[in-house]
């Protein structure tokens, strides 16, 4: 059994927002409603789901970029949520994040060389000469020309900017990278370049990933196991490819059947459901998915199904798969 690098237990994060005009009401967005999962060392763990399911909030809460309300996050045995500021600085060297749009996270007036050197200076990782050398090595590692150091973010294409985003995450030598939709904004031919780069880094450095994506094809290719989220909760966890070949939860089945496949012989099957998709502001009572579920029964409308482990590493929250 591989070592558990990260354990997330009953992680919860609710946001409040004001909605409506002219008389705004305060509403609670149940972005993360007690999710639990584990990431093994060296593994790429996928978090999938549709917009608003809480997958990005999960990534951010784990790194404490947003402070979770409750729950536990344990990194290599250490409780992250209990760490003080000084300890958090050390832990952040172990855990980094790559965003969907690296352009938004790069200072437009700062040259790439400086942007890459900064995290190392902040964390005091070496002398200026060592840092210079490290920047050069990082650029080579992510496949950017050495003269990129003297260029500004706007001089790069989308794919190159994502390479910069990855290089910056690597500056401090992390063990775990949270990649939040890292290839979603890229064209297909560029997407495969970035996926191959990430796979190479995983192999070479033994990196672990939390890979957040809405694209099941990409997740199937890159990850070893996944958690499927729906309205702030995890509905199914399992290893790849098992979870795609035999999805247990009706939502996983729906996602799988709706995902387009580049083969005209395999036509996608739309769900027969036609109504509005509920939101995490006011999730339906009982199982959140019951309003769209073809198998919903009375119990689904009343009681949220308990989590059930059906096989090692394989679990589901669905009354169909109750005891």
């Amino acid at each position: 059994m591989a070592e558990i690098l990260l354990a997330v237990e009953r992680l919860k994060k609710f946001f409040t927002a004001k909605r409506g005009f002219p008389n705004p009401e305060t509403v609670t967005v149940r972005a993360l409603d007690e999710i639990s999962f584990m990431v093994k060392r060296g593994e790429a763990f996928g978090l999938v789901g549709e917009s608003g399911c809480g997958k990005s909030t999960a990534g951010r809460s784990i790194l404490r970029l947003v402070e979770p309300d409750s729950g536990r996050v344990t990194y290599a045995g250490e409780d992250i949520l209990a760490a003080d500021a000084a300890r958090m600085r050390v832990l952040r060297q172990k855990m980094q994040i790559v965003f969907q749009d690296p352009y938004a996270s790069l200072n437009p007036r700062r040259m790439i060389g400086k942007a890459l050197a900064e995290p190392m200076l902040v964390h005091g990782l070496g002398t200026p000469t060592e840092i210079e050398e490290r920047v050069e090595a990082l650029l080579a590692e992510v496949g950017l020309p050495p003269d990129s150091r003297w260029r500004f973010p706007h001089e790069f294409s989308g794919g190159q900017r994502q390479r910069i985003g990855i290089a910056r995450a690597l500056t401090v030598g992390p063990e775990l990278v949270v990649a939040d939709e890292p290839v979603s904004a890229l064209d297909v031919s560029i997407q495969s370049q970035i996926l191959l780069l990430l796979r190479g880094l995983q192999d070479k450095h033994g990196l672990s990933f939390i890979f957040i994506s809405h694209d099941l094809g990409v997740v199937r290719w890159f990850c070893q196991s996944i958690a499927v989220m729906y309205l702030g909760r995890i509905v199914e966890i399992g290893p790849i490819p098992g979870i795609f070949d035999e999805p247990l939860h009706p939502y996983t089945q729906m996602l799988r059947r709706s995902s387009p496949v580049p083969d005209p012989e395999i036509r996608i099957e739309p769900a027969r459901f036609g109504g509005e998709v509920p939101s995490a502001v006011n999730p339906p009572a009982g199982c959140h998915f019951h309003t769209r579920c073809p198998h919903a029964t009375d119990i689904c409308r009343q009681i949220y199904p308990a989590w059930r482990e059906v096989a090692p590493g394989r679990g589901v929250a669905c009354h169909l798969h109750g005891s």
Partner: protein
Amino acid sequence: MATAFKVEPAEPVLSVQGLTTSFRVSGDWHAAVRDVSFDLAHNETLALVGESGCGKSMTALSIMGLVPKPAGRITAGRIMFEGSDLVSLDREAMRRIRGNRISMIFQEPMTSLNPVLTVGFQVAEALRYHRAMGGAEADRAALDLLEQVKIPSAARRFKDYPHQFSGGMRQRVMIAIALACRPQVLLADEPTTALDVTIQAEVLALLAELKQAYGMSMVFITHNLGVVAAIADRVAVMYAGEIVEVAAVRELFRRPRHPYTELLLRSIPRVDRHVSHLETIEGQVPSIAAMPAGCRFAPRCPLREARCDAPPPLAGAAHHVVRCWVRSEGGGHG
């Protein structure tokens, strides 16, 4: 899909011939769409597929007469529709066609819907304008349309505003507006790209169903080859402003001829099976101001030869044409 029992007019519904749309970039005119030709048959769905900047959207905007001026203009070609050349039509004549005989839907419905008007009003508007219907009559027809695009409890939501709808429902409203006047041709520009996959599947099914019911033809623009496989009858692949390959959908996915199409198909991770080797296409699409003189894909092409320095024509048997010196001869790669 064509049925053997229906008598179909042999004339294409829409015929684009040698379309070139150019843009001015620092003083010089460059073609964003170059020598694009295709015919659209009755009740056919033609997918225009390609990556960002390949000219697929600009082709649709050219057909609609919506090329942004003065930065861009159609510099060559004809767009034949119902006996007239759309390129030469004046503004008034074009207005009578747009949203009436040819309609268009876009990726982000929120930017096309007016936020301060109810959706019912906006659907009825097309009917009042093009069909000169009175208020009550147009409202009745609009409600019928909203039901056809399967908006739940349409009557109750008739007077709701766009922001009260989800992305998928807004796109349904856009489809209702586009179909209000029963157009011959629907241009759909990445209509499902901003939607979640489950909603995308529903909207694709709805479009296919309505196309059949209305007997219209559709040009479906997308970058997603999975979506192409799901909806298209025929596919035109675009690269750097040109069509590089056209074939029926099964033929294209089974026997891609152009190296770009082939690499693209092999660079997609698939949800239905494990892909051991993911292909990549080295380099980037050339910029509009620095197009190669010969084959535009040559700088990134693994099959490049000396003759690729000259621009290849779109050649081959009628059912499968390809713009490639290496692959247009013989039987391709089998």
